[in-house]
């Protein structure tokens, strides 16, 4: 069982994430933006962070920078979940050390669960 922080500002996607991951053994913490996400990450020290890019307050990329700047958080893998994926943006994202993977919206239920399993692990 692992802790997962999911940053997503769209209420419908938030709902979908909760419902999709309800059947997994993990604790899902959902944040409405990067700032809220950072508070949750600091508090919960999750095994993996999923984050949207386009969010108010603190967007996904800014959140990644903040994590990188903190020694005790920089090792946490970050999966970027975004609806605006274009090839050049993918490369740009991958170049960021902390971007472990990318999940493109719209994602299927299976894709999301597979990514969670991959990074949270069923045995951790």
């Amino acid at each position, binding site marked *: 069982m692992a802790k997962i922080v999911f940053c997503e*500002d*769209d209420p*419908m*996607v938030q*709902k*979908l994430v909760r*419902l*999709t991951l309800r*059947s997994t053994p993990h604790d899902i913490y959902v944040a409405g933006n990067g700032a809220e996400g950072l508070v949750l990450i600091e508090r919960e020290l999750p095994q993996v962070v999923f984050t949207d890019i*386009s*969010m*108010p307050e603190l*967007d996904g990329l800014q959140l990644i920078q903040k994590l990188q700047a903190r020694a005790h958080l920089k090792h946490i893998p970050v999966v970027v979940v*975004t*609806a*605006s994926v*274009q090839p050049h943006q993918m490369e740009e994202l991958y170049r960021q050390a902390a971007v472990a993977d990318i999940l*493109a*919206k*719209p*994602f*299927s*239920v299976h894709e*999301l669960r597979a990514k969670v399993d991959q990074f949270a692990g069923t045995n951790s």
Partner: protein
Amino acid sequence: MSDGTLFGTLCAVDPEPQQLAQKQADLLAVLARIIATAIELDNELEQRRMVERKLQHQLEFTATITSSLVSGLFAIDQEGCLTLINPAAQRALGWTEAELLGKDMHQLIHHQHADGTPFPKEECPLLGVVGSGETVRIDDDVFTRKDGTMFPVAYTSQPIVEDGQVRGAVVSFRDMTERKRAEESQARLAAIVQSSDDAIIGKTLDGVITSWNRGAENLYGYSAEEVVGQHISILVPPGYPNDVPNLLEQLRRGEHLSHYETKRSTRDGKVLDVSLTLSPIKDSRDNHVGTSTIARDITERKQMEKERAQALVAQRAANEELERINKVRKDFVSVVSHEFRTALTGIQGFSQMMRDEDFRVEEMTEMASDIYEDATRLNRMISEMLDLDRMESGRMTLNLGEVDLNEVLVRTTDQIRSNAPGHRIRLQLDEGIPELLADRDKLTQVVTNLLTNAVKYSPEGGEITIHSHLEGGFVHVRVTDEGIGIRPEVLEKLFEPYTRVESQATRYIQGTGLGLAISRQIVILHGGEIWAESEPGAGSIFHFTIPLDASRPVTDS
């Protein structure tokens, strides 16, 4: 003496005084008369020799003069035959004196006109002098040389009068070949200057116009008669700096100016751009005696240069605008596709789970309504994009009907309330508002947009007030929120399409960002106005007015 005057005394001296006999005395008297006569004769001879010497001197003097004359000179008798000719005339005519003496000069040198037609002797002005006794001066005639060639001459024929009778004529002439040639070349030059399209103007060193060609007449509109004698500064247009004194000063220093560009005015006051080439004019001794100006009209060229520069600036601005629009469109496409994918995420995810997994009925119902909401969201965005397209191509039209605006406000509020239960929405409606003639659906769209924005940009629990009242021929609606407010630079362009995608700070916000631009178009089509006031952090107030009858233009009372 022979005239009876006493000239002297004849004395006879004897060794011894004696009385002379009568015979002796008579003899002495005869001797005295002989001596007197001899002396008289000798005196007369002496006088004659003096006259002859004088005459000789005069003849030599005349000969010297005639032979040293540069002009040709010859004399003819009453019949026109040569009696005298000087060396200059012999050289000019190619004949020697010996060949000509006693010959009919008209037949030899004056028998044809310049065009080769015969010149009858009866009409010869040289000989005419002999008849009239009047001096004749001819400037443009020809003489023929011994070799048959002709040359232009100017001559004077003067009668020779002796004892009141005309005995002949003296003709002095000059070969005009060189002068003719000089005149011709000058005339050719003058013709070139005169016919030049460029204005060529002569001036004194002080700037007084001395010559003015046709090009100058054409360029400036003044005729030569009008301006010769005037000062060149009459060409300086009023209101422009007078550069003439400075130019004249440079010319007086002997400087030459090429392609000096300035403004000059025509007779009608039209201001021209001209290119001037200014040169000092020097005489043969290198003195500055005047100045010349060649002026060319470059107004058209200047205008073209200006237009080209303007076109370039406009082109650059258009390119920049096009670039901006292209970027905005691209950004817009990426924002819209982001929004579509986000909405599709819910639709796809929920429907997938409903299909593949087991849920309770309530959960299924909620998922179905979530799908419905996302689908509605998609539909709204598509509508907005279609509206934008209609707006941009000017095809947005109103479907007018009777509308109770307060009812629209109430219904829209109810709908928004159900979606945003956390916000408090208050209605302050003017019950005296009559039914409007307007497009109900489009007004609903405007109100929905303003309320959705108010909710979107306000914190949970924030108060939103909707206010309506009648104001002259208009209904004035206000939507007030206590939200994050709008920065002045955003406020400025709030109602323009794509404003939101241009600002990184507002890109995360859901939707196409076209709502306000569409709302403005709808309000304008009704004949109303829409505007906003806001302070960052202190909320915003959105206003719009709608005339009671959108089918008639209403003047604001």
